[in-house]
């Protein structure tokens, strides 16, 4: 892993976030709508074969922002389809994203038990 990897991660990750901010400020979509939009766009770009090259270029810069969730779902579905056909297509997406989703539920719950809102 070289400095170049970090630079690309910074630039691509930053640009994705900047684009989302632009959407919020210009269209006045709520952040929730924007997040939904970006996840869906990630899925679309993934199916078009455009997101995978981005992850190869930027590493975490492409896999940490939310569109990668759509990407991971699509890639998982396609991989499932290769293995088991149609049923794999349906199940593969959530299989591929099970780790971060379960981490989110588990830690979300744990945090709620441990902490109280501070305001």
């Amino acid at each position, binding site marked *: 892993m070289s400095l170049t990897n970090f630079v690309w991660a910074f630039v691509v990750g930053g640009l994705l976030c900047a684009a989302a901010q632009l959407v*919020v400020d210009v269209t006045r979509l709520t952040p929730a709508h924007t997040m939904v939009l970006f996840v869906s766009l990630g899925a679309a770009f993934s199916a078009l074969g455009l997101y995978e090259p981005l992850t190869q270029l930027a590493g975490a810069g492409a896999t940490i922002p939310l569109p990668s969730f759509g990407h991971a779902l699509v890639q998982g579905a396609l991989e499932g389809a290769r293995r088991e056909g149609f049923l794999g297509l349906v199940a593969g997406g959530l299989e591929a994203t099970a780790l971060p989703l379960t981490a989110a539920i588990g830690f979300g719950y744990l945090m709620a038990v441990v902490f109280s*809102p501070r*305001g």
Partner: protein
Amino acid sequence: MTGTAVRERPAAGTTESGRVPAPRRVGRYTMALPSRPPVAAVATVSGPMEGRGPLGHGIDHVHQDRTLGQPSWELAESRLLVDAAQRCCRKAGLELDQVDVLLAGDLLNQIISSSFAARDLDLPYVGLFGACSTFALAVGLAAVLVDGGYAATALAAVSSHHDSAERQFRYPVEFGAQRPPTAQWTATGAAAVLVGGPARKARVRITHVTLGRVVDMGIKDPYNMGGAMAWVAADTIRRHFQDTGRDFGDYDLVATGDLAAVGHPMAAELLREAGYEPGDRFADCGLLLYDRRRQDVHAGGSGCACSGIVFGAGFYPDLYEGRLRRLLLVSTGSLHNKMTWEQGQSIPTVAHAVAFEHAGEEASP
């Protein structure tokens, strides 16, 4: 509507239109209070942020802990209300059981903070909802009850809490959402005004109450409530002027509730277009509660407690000392909820006005 019913049984004093004139009503919207009920005491409490604002020194008690040691924001808010009510009675030298009626309101669903507070205060209770306009509404109705002889002392109290309001109207408090520059900051605090009591000591009196109508200008952005309410604020002020024959020249100050940086200049513009020149006698509580350069409140303050705290900590001492001789307080309310906003409905707005007067000299003729 009910017009026919009135015509069927014409009462003494019925006018041609069939309406019975109310003797204490002036114009269409305003009640004149001939006994000019005195304000016996005012008390305010707040959270830490309001305490650091420009009026912090005038707030009776600044709670540094926004939870007030309570397990939820909702209970914390109702403690604020109880605290303000108790302090107000103490300042007036009254026991709580000497208060005839409590009029209270807040922003939460089913005005739950007020109901919880009323449960503790144990007084005859009227719960009011006028969103952020509730302060003027409660004080105005308290004055009407005292003026009519239905209460010797009436306690008007309101509360709001930043975190309980965020939670109900916007997002959970720990959610990372950026607010647009038109957003306002819901004040954490409560204000209580005791109307009535021994009249000879009174240095501040209430002379008029103008109840506003609900106006919907079609604005749908809940992050721009000041802008949505500017029209109705100007409307209520205009109605008050028309009804009473007064204008800005008759008041040292006309203060709107929480129009803030977007709405207040709009209201001034609307009044100017209607032929009333606000000059430097037009202020807004939402712009006075915080120091917008130092405090990250975007367009300014809001919430029931906003006009309440600014009145109690800022205007009332000035009225008491005679530095302000006449004040028109116009609390403004944005009557939407999260569900109707999500359903795409526009925001109904309302504003109520109460006229206060310094009465220092009359007390010693």
